[in-house]
């Protein structure tokens, strides 16, 4: 998503400064800083040159020591906010996640809802919830903070959702959880990128409230997975495990992975089982109204692009 936003901004002749851990392949116009968002001096130097900041940096993942999540997601966000304020930045776009407000229950046409660190599941969601509350608390009349929560972003080159599904399927380790009929929202990458740029252009209107960003086309999770697989010439999974079993497996795996050094990520977590087994789709009216943004690429068009990209 970061790469997409940079490309979009450069394309319209915005002067772009980036800060990331490893060197990127940017157009020459981009001024690049290398390091962590937790390094105050570095962040200050980068922010000094800016009118607006888009904060996308985060530690993602479903396992790992909590300290790492806190350092990047909580402290990193505080550092970036502080540096931006010190540099006189007026517009700040914070990228959050729908998982900061909900865990477990079905979400059917749901509003964004307030972030609640105590109700989240997993280190990622908890630390992102704290970060979102910090970002919103920093919102003021001279420092507009917009918060976007893109839901389930996918597209060509995406290693998170698409990459994992494809890899698992190739290994023969992919299964439907439950009936595969849970309705889920997702966001095609181009739309997510455009929503971020829209938030940058309408930060004042969008400031002070979390906005969930999706394609506004909820689909049964099974249909979405089948579509992603078909785009890569793969067959739908033949295995189906009930939600309660998946949750049990997730519970066991989480403990095993936290106790022993098993490498990589557990094949299932309670969070993942819930995400796959229950509906989560959102009311997009407010988001579209304040961002003055509409998703341009439909899911079907996105799947076609995915198929072309995978060739």
């Amino acid at each position, binding site marked *: 998503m970061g790469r997409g936003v940079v490309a979009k901004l450069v394309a319209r002749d915005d002067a772009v400064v980036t800060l990331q851990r490893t060197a990127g392949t940017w157009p020459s116009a981009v001024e690049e800083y290398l390091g962590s968002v937790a390094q105050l001096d570095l962040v200050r130097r980068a922010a000094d040159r800016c009118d607006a900041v888009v904060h996308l940096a985060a530690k993602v993942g479903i396992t790992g020591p909590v300290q790492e999540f806190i350092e990047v997601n909580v402290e990193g966000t505080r550092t970036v906010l502080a540096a931006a304020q010190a540099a006189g930045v007026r517009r700040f776009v914070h990228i959050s996640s729908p998982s900061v407000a909900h865990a477990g229950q079905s979400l059917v*046409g749901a509003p964004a809802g307030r972030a609640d660190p105590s109700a989240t599941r997993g280190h990622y969601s908890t630390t992102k919830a704290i970060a979102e509350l910090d970002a919103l608390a920093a919102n003021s009349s001279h420092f507009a903070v917009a918060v976007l929560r893109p839901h389930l972003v996918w597209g060509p080159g995406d290693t998170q959702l698409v990459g994992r599904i494809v890899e698992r399927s190739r290994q023969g380790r992919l299964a439907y959880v439950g009936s595969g009929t*849970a309705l889920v929202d997702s966001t095609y990458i181009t739309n997510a990128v455009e929503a971020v740029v829209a938030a940058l252009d309408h930060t004042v209107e969008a400031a002070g409230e979390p906005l969930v960003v999706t394609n506004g086309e909820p689909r049964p999770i099974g249909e979405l997975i089948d579509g992603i697989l078909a785009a890569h010439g793969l067959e*739908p999974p033949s295995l189906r495990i009930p939600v309660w079993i998946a949750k049990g497996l997730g519970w066991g795996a989480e403990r095993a992975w936290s106790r022993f050094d098993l490498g990589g990520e557990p094949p299932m977590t309670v969070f993942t089982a819930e995400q796959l087994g229950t509906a989560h789709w959102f009311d997009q009216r407010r988001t579209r109204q304040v961002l003055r943004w509409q998703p341009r690429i439909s899911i079907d068009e996105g799947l076609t692009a995915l198929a072309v990209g995978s060739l």
Partner: protein
Amino acid sequence: MKAQLPPETFPGYDPTWSRLVKIPAGDQTGDGSETITLHVLDHCIGPAELTLLCVHGNPSWSYLWRNVIAQARPGVRVVALDQVNMGWSDRIDRPRILTERIGDLDALTDVLAIDTPVVTLAHDWGGPISLGWAQSHVSQLAGVILTNTSVHQPPNAAAPRLITVIRTPGLLGAMTQRTPAFIRGGLRLSSPEPPSEVRHAFLAPYLTPARRAGIRDFVEDIPLEPDHVSFAALQQVEARMPELAHVPALLLWGTKDPVFNELYLRDLEERLPHADVHRFTSASHFVSEDAPVAEAVWAWIESLQDRPEKAPIAPSVATLVPDLSSSGPLVTEWSDGAWKSIAGRDFLDRVYRIARGLVIAGIRPGDRIATMIPPGIDLTAVVYACWQIGTAAVLIDSGLGVRNMHRAARAADPHWLIGIPPAMVASKALGWNGKRIVAGEMDSRLRSALGVSLSLREVELTGEGGPLAVEDEDPLAAILFTSGSTGPSKGVRYRRSQLAAQRDIIAELYQITPSDRLVAAFAPFALYGPAMGLGSVVPQMDVTKPGSLTASALADAAGQIDATIVFASPSALKNVVATADSLTGTQKRALERLRLVMSAGAPIAQELLSSVATLCLGAAVHSPYGMTEVLPVADISLAERVGRGPGPGACVGRPLAGVDVRIDPFKAQTGYSAGEAQGEVLVRAAHQKQAYQRLWWTEQQTRTADGWHRTGDTGWVDREGYLWITGRMHHVISTADGPVTPIPIEHVVEQVPGVERAAAVGVGPADVQVVVVVLELTERSRTSRAATELTKVVRTALREASLAEPAAVLTVTDLPVDKRHNSKVDRSRVGVWAGKVLAGKTRVRL
């Protein structure tokens, strides 16, 4: 204990309504004081022009009326007292009896100086108290509203037995005073039980045994025996009911009440025959907790303003029985393995004999008579006899299914039941009211066991002579029932003039003359043959299953009378087409001689109409549009339909001459290619129903002030005036982009190969719903997500038709359809099911 203001707040209650009012004690109180302090809710917006006086029963307090008060209209003062020894009013250390309670109400209206007109509103044992007040203030009285109450114990009533049980020595104190069992039990009668905060509010003034003494005394004050201290007082209230004959009255009833059941409602209806009635069939004793009583009360009070002295009845010279002196066969039926006919002359003779016999048996003009006889000679003769007398035929057809038949019988509350032996058994088993006459043979022991007083044969034998003179110019002639595919089946009342208008518009529409002969395979119209002066035949079929009509049975019936017209329902025609292969040459020719085939009762697919046209080569194929409340509204021929194109929606033709149609547009519009506004279809016509049966509130909501019937159908009118139906109001999918109607989507999806039937439903909260398409496939399929390929085809088809794209496509083994027509999909049920499936729930039954 002295009166006090409620010490806490309760849900829906506003402390500013509360006040304490001192009234003269009348007789002395227990502690010798000469006044009593009452807690009263008293609320008015602006100067009062009318007062609504609310009287609660036992065990309760004025909290019962909180919703009525909250919705008060400006200019109406609402006064709701807590009775003496009840609620937050004084405890006077001795029981308060009925006459005293009526006196308390008198005293209260005096002290509050209520000099505006008054409408009384009461519940439970508040009923007799409010009526006692009303009878001595008739000149001030603007209306009387009663909810689940009584002034008299009807025979077989349950309350005396229950009360006798509670009054068992030892039990009374325990139930009503020492424990709060009586209050809790009473609230439990509410269905569903109110939330705990509301239950707490009802209990709050009765937390100690001392505060509950009034509840016990109230139960003791119910006069069941002639030597009871309040017997005379209650009898006087009962005896003076005729004094309210000219006072507008409204009866709102929760029919699930096990104490004040429908026997009490009927008793009050007989005492106040002019009353407006609404039966809330899902509500129990605390009807105002279970049903929109406050809304109905205020709508009724508003309706008082422009109420004519007496509803003017247009004098009608309409008669439903024309000259039938011909000797040709009038009604033909298949019975006991042979065709049987009755000539017009003999039919009329039989009608007169039955009518006179029924009068001798005790049937009076204005009675309601349930007829449970399969279509044929007997049914037709009985119904025309009912019309002869000026009684209403209650047509409870078995196509409703047992559950809806039972509801229909309770709603219509017939005075008489005339039916075939199985119907007699069923009606007894279901405990329907009414005296019974059996149409058919039944042995005497069974007759006495079932309470059957007479047989139709005996009735006919006793009746001698010609036609009866009818007193009422335009009596209630029929109560029909809606199919119940969209909520509980509703009774629909027709006056004779309205039925005559319906007959005339059908005769005119299809240019029916006495030289026509009719195959009546569609139940309601089966009765119209004689009224149009033409011969008719009922084909051999199982009337409970319209889909059982075979092509051979239809052709044989047509051949029998050399028929020119067929009236049938879509499911009957579907089976006719499916069984056409077995037709013989003679049978084929009988069908080819038809000049008109009409499909009515439910929407029919164009392909099916085309197949029917192929079978009946000489016939024009028509389908009228309408509903039980107004039929027909419009009509379209197959040729016209083909010419109009695919939609969006189902084209039902232009409104007929004499029928007004307009669209009440949706608040938000979703783009239509034609650019015409879509909304609810409203209809007005001379052959429209008189009213719903005992559903005053429903009537209020579905009839506009200027007499339009809200059909509940959605649609639009194209530039040439053709009406297109797109769904039902209840089934409109409310998406973020605006309302989406189901039929256009279903039509497109049903064209997809392999799809037998489709339902488009909404899932999610209002205003952000997504469209979900649920399919029944030609090949039996499992309940699940539709196959990838099928899903793709459905999506593409809808996109190409510029219709809303579904979030999901699901398949089911069978879509639920209505019993009567076997075609109207219960989309509400499908929607609830789809919502659960798409929330990720597994093993959800449809």
